């Protein structure tokens, strides 16, 4: 049953894997510092209002409590109260909720005080001793109700090409609404910070972040420090999925407390706090109209969306963008609003925007295919385009048809019933579904330091962090290929803001961006080695660089391979300890002006619906990725598996539930917010097109973290329709929504 290529063991283990299996890999909260103090948040139990009185007298007298910091005793933070004249330049400004700053409550569970104690136990025990009196105000948290009130929405962003609402003129069209609840990233490692001031204007932080440089800049800006005086260490990051793309309350709070107490302070969020103090995928409502002529050619798409933000920050994502460019259609209009609520601010979550947008668009296309009596894959092929219709530039590469062919074959598409609700196996209604995912694939700017030593070893450094995809492994592989030297002599170091600047790990850009810089550094090193050979090795004197190659730790003459020198001999001969270079690979790629670049995926699902309980059981998944060259097959496959698992959660179980009478999230635990577990996962078959796309970058690789998840939830919804003939447009697809009695 499991005997196919995807269970064949690929002999390319993670270079940093052993330490993750034996417990040696250190995560943020695990650094032992002398004299460490523990900070825990006291949080609000109203959603909106003013704190009239906050009595800390009992808490501060409790055993082991060192301080209770809140708005009345919080030291001045330069970035909390920016100088108006500096504002346009955004100097000294903390962006986000200013924790411990004022007596306003903006969402339920907002930190209102920080207890700092000599032990975790003492800090926790003092939480209940803080007494608070509030002036409560009416809160607004009910998205489903408030989105219907146009006065509550921020102004819309619109787009139009061709004729507006043209779909309704088509011979076959559908118009439908889609709802996705708030979903939370919930990485297994909770957000945490250890901060300590090494001097008046110098601080070091251990922080769970997807971007050490981003956290460095945030802390420098907030506390009025020079960036070089802020060091951020994030050696291992226990998942993120987007939650680590900005700094949350724990970061400034740890800095403030450490400064006030003049000792290192550690703050680790609790699991319930992970539901509202580290971002989430916003709730969204979408409406799609899509129409086609009798042949299946799309006539028009109209895509509207509203998603929530907080009252104190504007958070937007590209929910409707996918409808503008994925298919060949002349008439497209989109409209996107945000709705501010008395909740904390959302943040990008795996497949931001597109994950929500593709659920709606790919569900709508499936629905239209039944109206047209056409196979949904054929309908997609009918409207396939290799030129992005929004910007009229060709896609740098698009191999979706290969994905369709592979997926169709492997899932057993030929067994898919054309008429829904007509196939049964083992007492279950069986359905097949598929959907497409897409995400931008660019290349940003990154710097890499490469140190080649006389013993022939190469150390590379870049200030990125790795939340799990295996950056160290893929960068080592890229370096090994570019330098033509063995993997085990290369070490890639990350997770420290003291290293040369790298991007935040997000938007599926690390391999493309940092990989290009690694490739560039290695090619520069090869050049340097060739120059040294000409200068110091007699057999290469008067030779040209173009006649030489570096391979297998030797420098050869291409015209006569017997003329060679080992790199270690060359280093000795030239009397060099190291060659130490730092290069910057620029994000501006000339071919980005000629092409539009994306990664694509197509997901295929076979599932069963239990007629008695309405429970969906996934039976098989085939997921295919079109993301250029696959650098590290084993870790790439794992990323696709992970995206599918995330997609299963989005499709079937994940939803934050808010009690709107209080504004409180009522299911903030793993016991009540259901994430996918072992037993929910069917066999997942992963396949990649694996064709390099050199229009994006010199290594030909594009990101896949997002496309692994984007579109998956639509594939499930489409398969559910195929199984029972009921179209479910609200996620998650729970048994009560399937409610078979009404089928």
């Amino acid at each position: 049953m499991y005997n196919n290529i995807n269970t064949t063991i690929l002999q390319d283990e993670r270079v940093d894997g052993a330490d993750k299996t034996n417990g040696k890999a250190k995560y943020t909260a695990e650094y032992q510092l002398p004299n460490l103090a523990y900070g825990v948040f006291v949080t609000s139990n109203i959603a909106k209002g003013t704190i009239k009185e906050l009595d800390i007298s009992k808490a501060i007298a409790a055993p082991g409590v060192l301080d209770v910091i809140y708005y009345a005793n919080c030291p001045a933070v330069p970035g909390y109260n920016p100088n108006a004249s500096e504002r346009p330049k955004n100097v000294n400004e903390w962006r986000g909720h200013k924790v411990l700053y004022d007596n306003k409550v903006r969402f339920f569970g907002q930190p209102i005080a920080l207890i700092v104690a000599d032990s975790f136990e003492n800090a926790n025990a003092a939480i209940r001793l803080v007494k608070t009196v509030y002036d409560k105000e009416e809160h607004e948290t009910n998205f489903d109700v408030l989105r219907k009130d146009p006065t509550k929405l921020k102004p819309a962003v619109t787009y139009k090409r061709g004729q507006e609402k043209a779909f309704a003129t088509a011979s076959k069209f559908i118009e439908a609404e889609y709802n996705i609840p708030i979903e939370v990233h919930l990485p297994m490692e909770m957000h945490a910070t250890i901060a300590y001031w090494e001097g008046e204007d110098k601080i070091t932080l251990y922080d769970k972040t997807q971007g050490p440089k981003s956290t460095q800049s945030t802390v420098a800006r907030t506390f009025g420090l020079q960036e070089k005086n802020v060091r951020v260490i994030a050696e291992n990051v226990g998942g993120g999925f987007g939650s680590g793309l900005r700094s949350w309350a724990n970061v400034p709070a740890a800095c403030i407390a450490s400064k006030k107490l003049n000792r290192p302070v550690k703050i680790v969020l609790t699991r319930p706090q992970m539901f509202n103090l580290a971002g989430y995928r916003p709730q969204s409502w979408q409406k799609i109209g899509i129409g086609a002529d009798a042949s299946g050619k799309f006539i028009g798409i109209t895509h509207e969306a509203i998603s929530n933000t907080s009252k104190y920050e504007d958070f937007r994502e590209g929910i409707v963008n996918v409808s503008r460019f994925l298919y060949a259609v002349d008439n497209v209009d989109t409209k996107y609003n945000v709705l501010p609520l008395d909740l904390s601010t959302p943040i990008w979550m795996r497949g931001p925007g597109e994950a929500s947008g593709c659920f709606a668009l790919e569900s709508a296309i499936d629905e239209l295919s039944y109206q047209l009596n056409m196979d949904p894959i054929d309908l997609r092929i009918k409207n396939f385009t290799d030129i992005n219709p929004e910007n009229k530039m060709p896609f740098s590469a698009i191999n979706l048809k290969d994905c369709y062919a592979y997926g169709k074959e492997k899932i057993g598409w030929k067994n898919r019933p054309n008429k829904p609700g007509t196939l049964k196996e083992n007492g279950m209604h069986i359905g097949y579904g598929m959907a497409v995912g897409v995400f931008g694939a660019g290349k940003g700017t990154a710097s890499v330091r490469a140190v080649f030593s006389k013993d022939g070893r190469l150390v590379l450094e870049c200030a990125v962090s790795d939340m799990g995809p295996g950056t160290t492994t893929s960068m080592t592989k890229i370096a090994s290929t570019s330098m033509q030297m063995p993997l085990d002599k290369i070490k890639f170091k990350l997770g420290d803001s003291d290293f040369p600047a790298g991007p935040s790990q997000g938007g599926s850009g690390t391999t493309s961006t940092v990989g290009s810089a690694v490739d560039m550094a290695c090619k520069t090193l090869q050049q340097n080695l060739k120059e040294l050979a000409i200068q110091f090795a007699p057999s290469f004197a008067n030779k040209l660089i173009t006649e030489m190659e570096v391979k297998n730790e030797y420098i050869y003459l291409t015209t006569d391979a017997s003329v060679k020198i080992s790199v270690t001999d060359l280093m000795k001969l030239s009397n060099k300890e190291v060659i130490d270079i730092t290069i910057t690979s620029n994000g501006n790629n000339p071919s980005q002006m000629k092409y539009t670049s994306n990664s694509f995926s197509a997901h295929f699902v076979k599932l069963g619906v239990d007629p008695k309980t309405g429970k969906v059981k996934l039976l098989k998944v085939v997921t295919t990725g079109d993301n250029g060259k696959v650098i590290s097959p084993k870790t790439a496959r794992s990323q696709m598996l992970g995206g599918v698992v995330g997609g299963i959660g989005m499709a079937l179980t994940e939803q934050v539930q808010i009690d709107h009478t209080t504004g409180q999230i009522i299911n903030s635990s793993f016991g009540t917010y259901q994430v996918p577990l072992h037993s929910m996962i069917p066999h997942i078959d992963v396949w990649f097109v694996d064709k390099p796309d050199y229009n994006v970058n010199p290594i030909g690789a594009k990101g896949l973290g997002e496309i692994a998840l984007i579109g998956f939830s639509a594939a499930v919804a489409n398969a559910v329709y195929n199984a029972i003939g009921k179209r479910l447009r609200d996620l998650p697809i729970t048994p009560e929504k399937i409610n078979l009695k009404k089928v």
Partner: protein
Amino acid sequence: MNPCHFSDARRGFLKKTASLAALYLTPSILVNAVAAETIIPAPIPKEKLHLSINGKVFDLEIDARTTLLNLLREQIGYTGTKKGCEMGQCGACTIHINGKRTKSCIQLALNHQNNQITTIEGLSKGDDLHPMQKAFLKHDAFQCGYCTSGQIMSAVACVREGQTKNRDMIKSYMDTNICRCGAYQNIVDAIEEVAKSGTKI
């Protein structure tokens, strides 16, 4: 409320281990609601604890409220055991106590006088990885690595307890351990391989 689809095995496991959870590790939001008239607690006297961790004997004086997990991570410095929820729901803190897998975040340390504790650090012999650790590495049964210690401790118990007759049985046993990166399929591959190899672990 959305019904939870915990398997029976998972529920059984929760039942066995959850009894101590409520002692003081309630989420701060709930504690807050109680608030108010509480009197200031007296300093907590230290209590003596004698136990063995990975074969090493410890004689400790600890705060009575310390969980086994916090004892390991904060006081002894064995940070291989992870904190993922402090409610016994995620399995990241799974260790073996007298050979039985247990979630250490909902165990008060003082309840384990004279007990033999094994953590992830005690599984490998020096740099030589345990067969289950090797299998996890080979099958890429993790991404971020944060749930991995708990998954491996559960996986070893799964094989030792013979819960490996088929993949569904393994999955059911392993439902106690959440992996948010979604390495589930590879984890089951790793466990299946170790089980089939017949290696005594």
